């Protein structure tokens, strides 16, 4: 039985990775999860300089989901390279660094700094709904998406995954633009912009007022967008959005994802990633699937 997948020349032992921002750089979760079991660890977004993030409260639970407005707090690329990459190197898993920025040159600075680092892929976050500058602005306009992809690709030494926002009218347009800009793969979906109001206090629950919604409630939206995008582009897709169980992951793969990221589920169960990997293996056995790749986009009709 083969569970390994190949993403733009990088082999992952299985298609399960962590969704950026939910798993730090793996250290905290390594108390619960054998990181060697994971296809890849996708790190929390890192910028050229440290970012303070948003004021608190930064998270709120909603029915079947949660909102977050952490605001991409991160220690900056230097600290990240000194501490987080060496930590992850101890494990037999792929390292995918999520990169955030406020301007094209911010992104490129981080990507250049990572050129000589032992990381396997880069995931460029052009879809964070919680920061005022950059972030989602690059992910909501096809021209801007293509431009930033091109700029990053010019300086990148590792394959580039562009992480797309669902907060658009037609995600396939952005996907096609990223592909035209040279993206090696696409990650989707980032969170959906939401809001929660405390009716007793008549105030916003999040200090940022709005936050990105994740969790099982958004899973059907993610499956739909992965399906549409898989039809529109030829680069591989990493599917994410509300994957809580192996069944959710398989659904995403059948919709057209070559790999999946598990995010909010880590909060509900720190061992979610390992359980999902085991569940995918069990499904393959039960359904006599020899190779996981048979399942990619294999939904009938």
């Amino acid at each position, binding site marked *: 039985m083969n569970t390994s997948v190949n993403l733009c020349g990088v082999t992952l032992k299985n298609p399960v990775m962590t969704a950026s921002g939910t798993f730090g750089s793996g250290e*905290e979760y390594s108390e619960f999860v054998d990181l060697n079991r994971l296809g890849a660890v996708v790190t929390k977004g890192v910028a050229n300089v440290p970012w303070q993030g948003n004021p608190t*409260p930064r998270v709120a639970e909603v029915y079947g989901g949660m909102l977050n407005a952490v605001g991409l707090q991160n220690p900056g690329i230097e600290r990240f390279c000194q501490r987080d990459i060496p930590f992850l190197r101890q494990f037999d898993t792929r390292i995918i660094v999520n990169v955030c920025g406020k301007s094209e040159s911010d992104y490129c600075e981080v990507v250049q700094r990572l050129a000589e680092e032992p990381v396997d892929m880069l995931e460029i976050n052009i879809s964070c709904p919680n920061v005022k500058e950059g972030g989602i602005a690059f992910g909501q306009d096809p021209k801007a998406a293509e431009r930033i992809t091109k700029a990053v690709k010019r300086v990148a030494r590792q394959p580039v995954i562009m992480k797309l926002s669902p907060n658009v009218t037609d995600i396939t347009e952005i996907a096609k633009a990223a592909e035209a800009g040279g993206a090696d793969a696409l990650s989707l979906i980032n969170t959906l912009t939401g809001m929660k109001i405390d009716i007793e206090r008549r105030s916003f629950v999040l200090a940022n007022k709005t936050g990105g919604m994740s969790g099982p409630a958004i899973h059907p939206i993610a499956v739909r967008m992965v399906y549409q995008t898989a039809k529109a582009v030829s680069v591989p897709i990493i599917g994410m959005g509300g994957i809580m169980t192996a069944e959710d992951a398989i659904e995403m793969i059948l919709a057209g994802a070559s790999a999946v990221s598990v995010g909010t589920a*880590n909060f509900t169960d720190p061992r979610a990633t390992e359980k999902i990997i085991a569940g995918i293996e069990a499904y393959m056995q039960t359904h006599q699937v020899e190779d996981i790749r048979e399942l990619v986009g294999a939904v009938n009709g």
Partner: protein
Amino acid sequence: MAQKFEEQAQVRKQMQIADNIFDLTLQTQEIAKHAKAGQFVSLYCKDGARLLPRPISLCGIDQKEGTIRLVYRVAGKGTKEFSGLKEGDTVSVLGPLGNGFSLRNGRAFLIGGGIGIPPMLQLAKECSEKQIILGYRSEPFLLEEFQEQGEVFVATEDGSAGTKGTVLDAIRENGLTADVIYACGPTPMLRALKAFAAERGMECYLSLEERMACGIGACLACVCQTKEKDAHTNVNNRRICKEGPVFDAREVEL
């Protein structure tokens, strides 16, 4: 690194002790053995639509019995679910989490405000030279148990018991003095205590609260602002669930 345990804990007993306040005792395998005052646990809901664990501080730790005691307020649907737990039921628990209180030398004020009162009970059992000051909105709870541990001064917002006003009003009214403060409660109270301690040159350790997601330091939801750049985050904030919830008041901006 302090070890954390994920367990299916069994409910030994639960009762309501005040308006919306519940007293839950859980049988654990390992958590009670390793826990200390001021730490907290994450409780997970059974309802799959409620994804985030609820962080609840430890009101009591019985290492011999292997039990932990949680006194919490029903604040939403998750805690409402927990309030329905009956003897023999199980609940998924992760802990112990956070740093907890470290006792210093000297005479102490143990100060609790509202739902910040319960975690001070375990500390009261461990701290020898102390005065306990508790601030309630109105109806006191856990009062007799605190009184078993030492001298207790009460403040209530409505004046129904003790000093009318805040814990600081009670301290002033009774002319209390100490060398070190340990406190847990609402942010305005902690802010006032930080200023009070600075004014009097007292050591002051505050247990902070914030909305959490992962509870283990990965998601960066529950940060507090710090005076100095934090070693982990590399910015001026620190993770309450990991480096806290107890901080030296001089380190944090409230």
